[in-house]
Structure formats: C-alpha cells, structure tokens
C-alpha cells in the first residue's frame, strides 16, 4: 500500500451566495404529467423511482396533465386559490403587526401556501395534523377564524393559549391541528404515536406529521420512521423541503446527493416527491397518501419540493446568506400565480375577478385584525393576567404553585 494522501473534510456549500447570480441548475425537474401514478398498495420497493422524481400536474401552459391530475372542479380550485391568497394576506398583515410592535415575532409561509392549503383538503374530520410553524394554511384552508389565530399572535385577552405560547405556535384541537412545539421535529414521532393509538383503538382516523427538510436531521425524524416502519400506523410523513433552514441550504441537512424522499427507502416506507408549488399535485399526492393510511396500508413519506420565498422569521434577514433574487429564479414558480393561471386557462377566472378577490381578502383580513386588536396586543390593552401563568402546569394546581402565585400577589 502506498502512503495515503492526507484526508480532508467535505463541507457542502450552496452553489451561490449573496452577490452571485441565482443558480438552480443542479435541480432536475421532470415535465408535468410525466411521473407515473402507482396503485395504492404498491410495495415500497417498487416505487423507489418516485423518490427521485417530482410529481407535477400543472404544466407551463397552465394546464393540468398526466395521471396525477386530481380532476377538481372549478369550485374546488377556487377554494384552493382563495385559501392560498388568504394565507398570504394573513401573513403580510401579521408581519406588519410585528413590525409595528404589536407582537414579538412572526413567521410567514410565503411561497409554500399550496402545501398546507392543499393537504388539508385530503383530510377528514377527526384526523390530526402535527404541524410546524409554517403550516398556518392547514387552518386557513378550513376557514378557521382568522381572528382566533390573530389573538394568539397578539397574546391578547382572547388568546386561546392564554399568552403562554410564542406567536404562531397555535393549537386547535377541533380543527385537527395539534399544538405546535417550539422544538423542532419532536412532533414527528408524536404523530406516529397518535396514529398508532388510532390503530390500537380500531379507529379510522389518520395523522399527518410535518417537518422541514433541515429538521429531518433531528433524532425524532429517525424515531418516527423506525416506529412507522415497524407498526405501519396510518400516518402521512410530510417533509417540506423549502431549500433553506434559516441560513443553511438543504445540503447541510444531507440533501446534496440524495433527496429527502429517499430517506424512507431504508425503512421500507413508500415515498413520493412532489411539486409543492403546484396546488393540483399537492391535492392528488396528499389524497393518495391519506387513502393509503385510511385503508390500513400504512405510512407514506412525501417530500414537498418548494422554496421559502420570505425570511425564516421576523428576526431573519436572508440577504445575508443568499442572493436577493433567488426567490424569483425559483424554477417551480409561485403557487398562487400557477393556480390562478390554470383557472384562467380553464375559463373559470379572470384578472378582474382576481383583483376583486384580492381586495375582498384584504378587507376580510383587516376586519379580522381590527376585531382581534380590540382584545389587545402584546404590549397594549387587555391581556391574559399573571394568574394565568400558574394555571395548566398540572390539571390541578399543586400547593407549591399556589404558594408561588401568592408570593407574586396575584
């Protein structure tokens, strides 16, 4: 053996940095309609190719093509468009509220609206999402009151979480929306446990787990896949690959040479990779996976390919780590624009009606906000009192908390 040459550490780098021209040339994007749609009960091994493809329905001309076309009517499509636009308008308004000092923090889902808005439509009453902070669309798509969400963000007197949680970490059991944790990935395995419980109970309800591509590196992602692989519970394992985890591009999470959908293969779990900016693809792929779960065929992992068009949160400035123009160069386009164009191509929509709808939604959000603000904002007006702080640590307040509450004098 010859004397070996010195080793060196490989540290993945994104193709471009601020100042450079955006470059998505490393991405392979199949044409819409080209990816096959296997039967629901196909074994994991026989659909490995789908983890390296991208399921797409809407083509460049705004037409719905191929085997994954969910065949939605105009009303369903319009519902999707409206849900995405409402989500975007809500985000804009809440970010503004944060800038105005009405709350401490906010997180948008700009560019990713199709995923949560579309996925929710595949679920039924009683099913349970275990969302991250970027799935407000799950609530908005089912017309959950915006005011209720706003009150949480403002930590005001009507905040159903009594001021205890950071803004955007909603909880809405009735809406099948599990309390969001500030700790990444922890809920992925909980979703699996919830689905196991449903199976143990002979129930028919399914769970949906949510995670960002960056967070798939966390331990609980593995735990979830192991338990899902072993017990085959009715759970959909969503991975939202929006290319970025704060400042770290997806290569730092291990996406340099392999897709996140492929992670499932080592666990024998069927997985799909889909265009997350294509509302129709989202609807179809979500329905496929939910149906599998419902029929006791077990878990499915879905990687949604998308792009985080905005900053990570209200505390972030992405121009420090990626080109400002990168969002515009994103090859899968904008989900709202794409669905709008599709509706126009179908003859079911027009620029004029789009403008009207935009204005209506603007108005709706504003009205909701006015209503919410009547119950106070983080620093002004009515708010959950200090006594609330001691409630709910336990079902019944133990003596030491009663003593502490007395010590505070409330």
């Amino acid at each position, binding site marked *: 053996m010859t004397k070996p040459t010195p080793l060196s550490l490989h540290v993945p780098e994104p193709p471009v940095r601020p100042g450079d021209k955006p470059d998505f040339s490393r991405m392979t994007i199949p044409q819409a309609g080209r990816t096959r749609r296997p039967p629901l009960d196909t074994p994991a091994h026989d659909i490995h190719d789908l983890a390296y493809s991208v399921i797409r329905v809407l083509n460049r001309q705004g037409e719905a093509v191929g085997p994954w076309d969910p065949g939605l009517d105009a009303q369903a499509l319009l519902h999707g468009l409206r849900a995405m636009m409402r989500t975007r308008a809500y985000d804009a308004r809440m970010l503004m509220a944060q800038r105005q000092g009405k709350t401490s923090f906010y997180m948008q889902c700009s560019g990713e609206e199709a995923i949560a808005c579309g996925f929710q439509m595949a679920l039924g009453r009683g099913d349970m999402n275990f969302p991250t902070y970027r799935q407000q669309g799950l609530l908005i798509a089912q017309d959950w009151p915006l005011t209720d969400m706003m009150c949480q963000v403002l930590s005001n007197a009507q905040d159903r979480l009594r001021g205890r949680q950071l803004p955007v970490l909603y909880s809405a*059991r009735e809406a099948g929306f599990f*309390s969001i*944790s500030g700790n990444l990935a922890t809920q992925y395995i*909980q979703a699996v*446990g919830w689905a*196991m*419980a449903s199976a143990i109970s002979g129930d028919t309800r399914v769970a949906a787990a949510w995670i960002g591509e960056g967070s798939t590196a966390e331990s609980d992602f593995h735990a979830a896949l192991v338990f899902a692989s072993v017990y085959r519970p009715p759970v959909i394992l969503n991975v939202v690959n929006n290319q970025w985890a704060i400042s770290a591009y997806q290569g730092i999470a291990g996406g340099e040479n392999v897709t996140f959908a492929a992670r499932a293969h080592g666990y024998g779990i069927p997985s799909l990779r889909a265009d997350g900016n294509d509302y129709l693809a989202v609807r179809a792929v979500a329905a496929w996976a939910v149906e599998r779960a419902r029929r006791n065929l077990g878990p499915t992992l879905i990687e949604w390919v998308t792009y985080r068009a905005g900053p990570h949160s209200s505390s972030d400035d992405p121009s420090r780590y990626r080109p400002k123009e990168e969002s515009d160069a994103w090859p899968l386009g904008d989900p709202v624009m794409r669905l709008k164009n599709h509706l126009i191509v179908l003859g079911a929509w027009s620029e004029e009606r789009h403008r009207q709808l935009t204005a209506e939604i603007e108005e709706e959000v504003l009205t909701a906000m006015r209503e919410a603000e009547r119950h106070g904002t983080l620093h002004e007006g009515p708010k959950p009192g200090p006594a609330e702080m001691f409630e709910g*640590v*336990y079902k019944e307040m133990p003596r030491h908390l009663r003593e502490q509450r007395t010590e505070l004098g409330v």
Partner: protein
Amino acid sequence: MARRTMVEAIRDALDVAMERDARVVVFGEDVGYFGGVFRCTDGLQRKYGTSRCFDTPISESGIIGVAVGMGAYGLRPVAEIQFADYMYPAYDQIVSEAARLRYRSAGEFTAPLVVRMPCGGGIFGGQTHSQSPEALFTHVCGLKTVIPSNPHDAKGLLIAAIEDDDPVIFLEPKRIYNGPFNGHHDQPVVPWSRHPLGEVPDGHYTVPLGEAVIRREGDAVTVLAYGTMVHVAEAAAEESGVDAEILDLRTLVPLDVETIGRSVRKTGRCVILHEATRTSGFGAELSAQVQERCFHHLEAPILRVTGWDTPYPHAQEWDYFPGPARVGRALRAVLES
C-alpha cells in the same frame, strides 16, 4: 390480600389498570413476549394481546415520543425505560413535550403518560445500571415524580399514576424489587414475603400521589428518605440507637411539605438521604425547603447523606452506596452539633 414482591406488585398494578381501562397500553424494550428484563410485564401480552402490550424498537426517544402522541389521542400509555440510566435520549420528549403539552395548548391536549424506570444501585450494575436521576425530573415543572419503597405502595402509587391526568415519572428502585435492602450487602437477602409491606391487597386501590408517610416515629431527628434509602434509614436508626423519625416521601413532586414540616418542627433536626450524586440532587431542594419552612426550629445544620459526585463505580459499589454506617454517623452528628 397476598404476599407479593415489588415486581409482582407492579405487574399486578398494570394488570388491574389494563383490565379496568381499555385505554391503558404498555410497551417498551423487551416488555412484550418476554415480559421485561425484570419481568414486570410478564403475562400481559398473553392476556391483553399485542396491540396493548408490545415490544418497541430500542429508541427511548421514540418510546416517549409515541407515548406523548398516544396520550394526546386519548390513550393512557405506560412506557418502560429499561434502566433509568437510559432515559437521557428520551429526556427531550419528557421535558419539552410531555411536561409542557397541557400548558402550552391551554389544556387542549394532554399527555397522561406514565414512564416506569428501574433506578438505583446496589446490584453491581456499574455506572450505566445504577443511576438515580430523580432530580432531573423534579426540576421540570409539569411532571410528577414518584418512587415507592415497597410492594404495597408500588401497586397503589402505580395505579394512581396511571389514573393521573398528568405525566408521571415512576422510579422503581431495582435493588428492592425482590426484597427490602437495608444496605447490609453482606447479610442474607430478605424476601418481601417476610416484610409487612409485602402484603399487597388484591384488585384496585390507590396510594394518592403527593403524600409522604412516617415509617418510624421518633423525636430526635427527622430523616427524609425515599426508595431503597427508607430501609437503610430504618437500619441506621436501629443500629445507632438514635430515635429518628423516618419519612418515606413516596412522591417528590408534588412534595408533602406539611408532613415534612410537622416532623422537623417537632425534632428540630433533619438528615436527608438519597443514592443520587449530591450536587443539585433532590436533597438540595429538600434541604432548602426545610430551611425555608422550619428555620427557627432548626437546632443543627441539615445534613445530606448521598451518593458521591462521581459516576457510580463497579468495584467500589459499597464505598459509593450510602449505607447504614454512613447514615448512622450523620444521625449522631446532627445530635451532637
């Protein structure tokens, strides 16, 4: 009523709980077909089927993670961590999730789970089969922490824990699974069948969480102990001739400060025992509270007799374990100061 070991009492508690409530499910590493490495779940899979009692992958974070999800769904999961020393991978799910869920969701979701784990030393298990991590749980609001010292309490506390709507950490001192142990490792092992607290009622009963019990009445000094150390305290009191009042705390959080306060105000002296390492052990909290609540009644410094601030060694087991000789010295010391 029957004589039972602690293992049998725990198994009986699980059986009673599973029988009464179909929502109770039991799982963990080797707990299914095999019945657990300490046999605490033996027979449950046969009786209740694989959906209600099953083996899990070796993933403590996964075990507690699915338990949280099951609890949120509405089940009553009872998870076993094979040794308390292996709970660390699950610590995030316990602290950040189970303990906070009710609070952060304002009661929309709860995690009514029980995490059973054998703890403590005295079995030549070395540093990874001997730990007593109770203080790592008592610092975490939202958790209840329980540790029985005998079969009777083990069954009653475990049933109470399963019926409790909050997450409960249930520590089982493995050295006393099969018989009380007073620290005299060179004496023959005594079985539970010869101890009055090995008398375990049949069927359903509970020992309420949050209540300490006086194991020995005395006037000279209050001893605060739990788990195996209760038996060590009894031996030490007997052998040193010190008229100690021995409290078995049973639940660490919520703590029975009334019983503690009453005793210390009577005796004016206090010795605290635990196997865990000393610094920031639960003894520190006990010491702080006794001092805060009984300052003007204290006639001597509160002493702690604990494991040393080292990993639990293998060969030096009996130099590490806070046995009756060390406890006896402390009892005499507080009387003399």
